[in-house]
């Protein structure tokens, strides 16, 4: 194929869709930690407690393995790695439905800060704190916000930098020490840093469908904010954070789907009815084979998004929209089939399958539904609506 005949929207020719040795080593470290400290029984017990996340697990993951700073440059104490590595961490967190604020703090909040002026002491200080994992950050937007939105922040900034307004359904807000708040200022859009413990900040916990990713409404009433960015820069960095978050969420969805399929195969190979393992019936094995093909395909889509984000490819918006439109329903189907093919045991609270179903279904709404991503794609690849 020559360059001239490639369509105008053709992707960068050679995305690296594999895992490097370093990425595999990182996976091994994260998986070992989660196997040891976050097995399904532990997760189930944790989500029934009143604690918003597993702080000890977060410390090990964020600080000891150093995953909190993967996206942060070395000059701010980060690992200077990129989205390919963070995606591997999210695959493992998805496989374990681990209740830690990685997507919210180490991906969304960090990426929002990375688009601000690094010379600014406020930005540098926040990046350093988040990279160390000692501070948990959250980007104060509803978890359902798709890349490209919200058009108008629900928080107003006064000229003196105080913030007033309400942001609903913010993931991991109750766990956060530092809120990054998009606001409408007197001179247009702006991004502020707000201490979660400051006066005038109230977080109101919501009972979430997905118990492993707590939600809260955040109300600001004259809360003091420190300005991080204004104007286009503020809008663009929030947009970049949402795009990166949506792209890497595909890897979490891949991890969820992988666990569900592996567990379904394991169960149906052992469970005997009618004198033979139920997994030997074609009616069941064909469904699992179809899920396997979807998981293999989701891996290619998720790697493509992570690689496009890592290389700053102009194709990244397409790669992210494709990955989200594809991986979200794959995770939901894998979790639904996991319940069905487990039979009665799949409907019990005791079996962990429901944790994965709840994560998969919530993830489908997270950072844009598949339908919203397909709408975005229609514009990007010139397949406009009627």
């Amino acid at each position, binding site marked *: 194929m020559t360059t001239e005949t490639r*369509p105008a*929207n053709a992707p960068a020719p050679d995305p690296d869709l594999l895992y490097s040795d370093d990425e595999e080593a990182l996976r091994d470290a994260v998986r070992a930690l989660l196997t040891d400290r976050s097995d399904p029984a532990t997760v189930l017990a944790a989500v029934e407690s009143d604690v918003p996340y597993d702080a000890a697990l977060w410390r090990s993951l964020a600080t000891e393995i150093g995953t909190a700073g993967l996206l942060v440059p070395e000059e701010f104490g980060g690992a200077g790695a990129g989205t390919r590595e963070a995606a591997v961490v999210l695959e493992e967190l998805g496989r374990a439905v681990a209740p830690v604020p990685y997507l919210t703090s180490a991906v969304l909040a960090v990426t929002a800060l990375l688009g601000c002026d690094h010379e600014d002491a406020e930005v540098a200080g926040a990046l350093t704190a988040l990279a160390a994992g000692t501070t948990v950050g959250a980007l104060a937007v509803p978890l359902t916000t798709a890349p490209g939105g919200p058009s108008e922040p629900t928080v107003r900034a006064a000229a003196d930098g105080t913030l007033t307004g309400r942001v609903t359904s913010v993931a991991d807000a109750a766990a956060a020490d530092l809120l990054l708040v998009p606001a409408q200022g007197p001179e247009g859009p702006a991004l502020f840093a707000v201490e979660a413990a400051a006066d005038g900040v109230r977080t109101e916990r919501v009972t979430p469908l997905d118990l492993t990713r707590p939600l809260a409404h955040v109300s600001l009433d004259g809360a003091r904010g420190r300005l991080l960015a204004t104007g286009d820069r503020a809008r663009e960095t929030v947009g970049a954070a949402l795009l990166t978050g949506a792209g890497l969420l595909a890897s979490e969805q891949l991890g969820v789907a992988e666990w569900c399929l592996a567990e379904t195969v394991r169960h149906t190979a052992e469970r005997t009815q009618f004198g033979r393992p139920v997994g030997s019936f*074609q009616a069941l094995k064909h469904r699992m*084979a179809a899920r396997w*093909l979807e998981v*293999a395909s989701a891996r290619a889509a998720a790697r*493509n998004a992570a690689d496009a984000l890592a290389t700053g490819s102009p194709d990244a918006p397409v790669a992210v929209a*494709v990955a989200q439109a594809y991986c979200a329903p794959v995770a939901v189907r894998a979790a639904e089939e996991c319940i069905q093919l487990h039979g009665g045991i799949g409907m019990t609270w005791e079996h962990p399958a429901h944790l994965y179903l709840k994560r998969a279904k919530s993830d489908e709404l997270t950072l844009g539904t598949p339908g919203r991503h397909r709408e975005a794609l*229609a514009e990007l690849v010139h397949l406009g609506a009627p």
Partner: protein
Amino acid sequence: MTDAADLRRRTAALLAAHPPATTDRLDFLRARFDAGLAWVHFPAGLGGLDAPRALQAVVDAELAAAGAPGNDPGRIGIGLGMAAPTILRFGTDEQKQRFLRPLWTGEEVWCQLFSEPGAGSDLAALATRAVRDGDDWVVDGQKVWTSSAHLARWAILIARTDPDLPKHRGISYFVCDMTDPGVEVRPLRQITGEAEFNEVFLTGVRIPDAHRLGEVGEGWRVAQTTLMNERVAIGGNRIPREGGMIGVAAADWRARPELRTHDLHQRLLTLWVDAEVARLTGERLRQQLTKGQPGPEGSGMKLAFARLAQEISGWEVEFLGEDGLTYDDWTMRRPEGVDFTGREAGYRYLRAKGNSIEGGTSEVLLNIVAERVLGLPPEPRTDKDVAWKDLPR
């Protein structure tokens, strides 16, 4: 070890000695084969240089830039994709020397005599008999779904040599001379109106024992090599975004705004995403193969391809409105090759129905994925240790 620089030198030398502009096409292809630049991963002396397979792209790019003639792989796909790897793996030195060069240059077309009316998904149940007679085998039976049979000089053939053994163990693998007077080829007309395939009747066909590939009774194992290569060949093409059937559908959408509906829009976008992800999955598989870490994704690629081809072509006929009610031509023809995206939407829709049947039905492929990739327990088998002659049929 042959590297890219060495291959460029050899390619330049070939082009210098046989300038494409002034060299006969066949002479050039023969010279290319003899220079080891036909398929560089093949052994030296058999069209290759024992080089890594990935380096073929280096040679192909240099030759394409120089305007060198190709060997028209669409016309000789069965020879290149299935017969050649099997001959290389199981053939004697004599067989390799005799068959590979004219196979690659396209001087001799090959076809595949595997499927039978009574042996489709259960290929190992095949009934075509080969009986030893001196230095020859005498073959009687009927084969079906044979593309290129009317053009072929040779066929790869599997036949039953011992009906007293269980079905997988009594099969042998042969090279059959399609010019033998006992070979009769009849076109098999399909739902598209044309006859891309044939039925082949074998009556007292004599095959010298020297044209057997592999040991007597080892034919099933030899055939596995052929079938594995068939699946690699199907998933092996690198395509750009919007390559293949989805590109045609997207072009229709852009060109015919008056036919657009919201429902068709949603379905097109979903298919576009699925097609792009299938492309990426194939690309990932290729990257794994290049790095020498072959993944099991290959077994699934054909499943995805078949489903997409059927859904996209069905979408297209529906999108086209009144034009979807028409068909370009029902004339019975015998095309030399097949182009899944060729002709009009109605043809594409009908031809795609075969994609989930040919080369392993989607149902059989799902079994393969479930049992070999996922390790699920097999269905109970009633035919496993029974002599072929005692099987119900």
